[in-house]
């Protein structure tokens, strides 16, 4: 099982994402944003960071990178894609996921351990969790407030597209406590919190994040 991790100019968490892939016993494959080469990977992770310095809008310029257009094409054919933090922003900007991420409501960068509830335990990236399971992983962002027009939020909720919700406090003013969403087919997931930082007891608040990376192994086998 080969899982690609894309590096953009300004990516920060690509190495941590690759390590999480390795701990899940898959093979991480480094991908470069400017290439048109997905290197025969079975799934792709877009990591956190500040691609292009968040210029224009967070994720906006990275979403137009050559490799991201390839990812969009493959995702529409069912390849699992996970976007974490800046990667989530890129997937929203690329039109693979609904909604948008904007400046935190309180205007402060927020960095803390965050409790989440798994709302959808049947996506490619969350099937190793139980529905309603509470997990704790780090959250760290300045532009993580999930927004959409009220009618769009109703539709996103109504279609069951909310994958993960903030519980025990909303770190950034995200509408309806939405921390992550999924595509219609459940193969693409994006979230602002960082499961890849919660995969080892030594460095994380828990190992709760590992389930994202083990889930996809089954998703690819069953596809």
């Amino acid at each position, binding site marked *: 099982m080969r899982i690609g991790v894309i590096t953009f100019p300004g990516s920060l968490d690509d190495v941590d994402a690759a390590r999480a892939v390795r701990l899940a016993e898959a093979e991480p494959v480094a991908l470069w944003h400017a290439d048109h080469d997905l290197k025969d990977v079975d799934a792709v992770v877009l990591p956190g960071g500040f691609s292009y310095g968040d210029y224009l809008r967070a994720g906006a310029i990275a979403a137009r990178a050559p490799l991201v257009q390839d990812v969009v094409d493959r995702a529409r054919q069912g390849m699992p894609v996970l976007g974490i933090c800046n990667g989530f922003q890129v997937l929203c900007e690329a039109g693979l996921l609904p909604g948008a991420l904007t400046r935190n409501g309180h205007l402060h960068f927020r960095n803390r351990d965050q409790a989440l509830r798994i709302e959808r335990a049947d996506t490619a990236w969350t099937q190793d969790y139980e529905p309603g399971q509470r997990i704790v992983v780090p959250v760290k962002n300045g532009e993580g407030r999930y927004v959409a*027009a009220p009618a769009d939020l109703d539709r996103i909720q109504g279609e069951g597209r909310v994958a993960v919700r903030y519980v025990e406090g909303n770190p950034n003013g995200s509408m309806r406590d939405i921390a992550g969403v999924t595509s219609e087919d459940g193969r693409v997931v994006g979230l602002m919190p960082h499961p890849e930082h919660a995969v080892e007891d030594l460095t994380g608040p828990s190992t709760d994040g590992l389930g994202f990376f083990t889930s996809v192994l089954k998703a690819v086998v069953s596809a």
Partner: protein
Amino acid sequence: MPRVVVDVVLKPEISDPQGQAVLGALGRLGHDGVRSVRQGKHFVLEVEGTPDRAELQQIAETLLANPVIEDVELHLPTD
């Protein structure tokens, strides 16, 4: 060279915490008459030849703005 201006503004239904922070600062400076502030972006493009409205509209809607949360106003030289 013709200059085209593109203003990008948040849709009215999307809240603007940055604008609200500016409004709060104006209040502290004594400018009590300002009722609302909405922050946006202002792009100035220099283009070769006669600006093509359709192409510029596409540029504005596919890159300069995110249509999920923002509206664009295009100002061509003849406007």
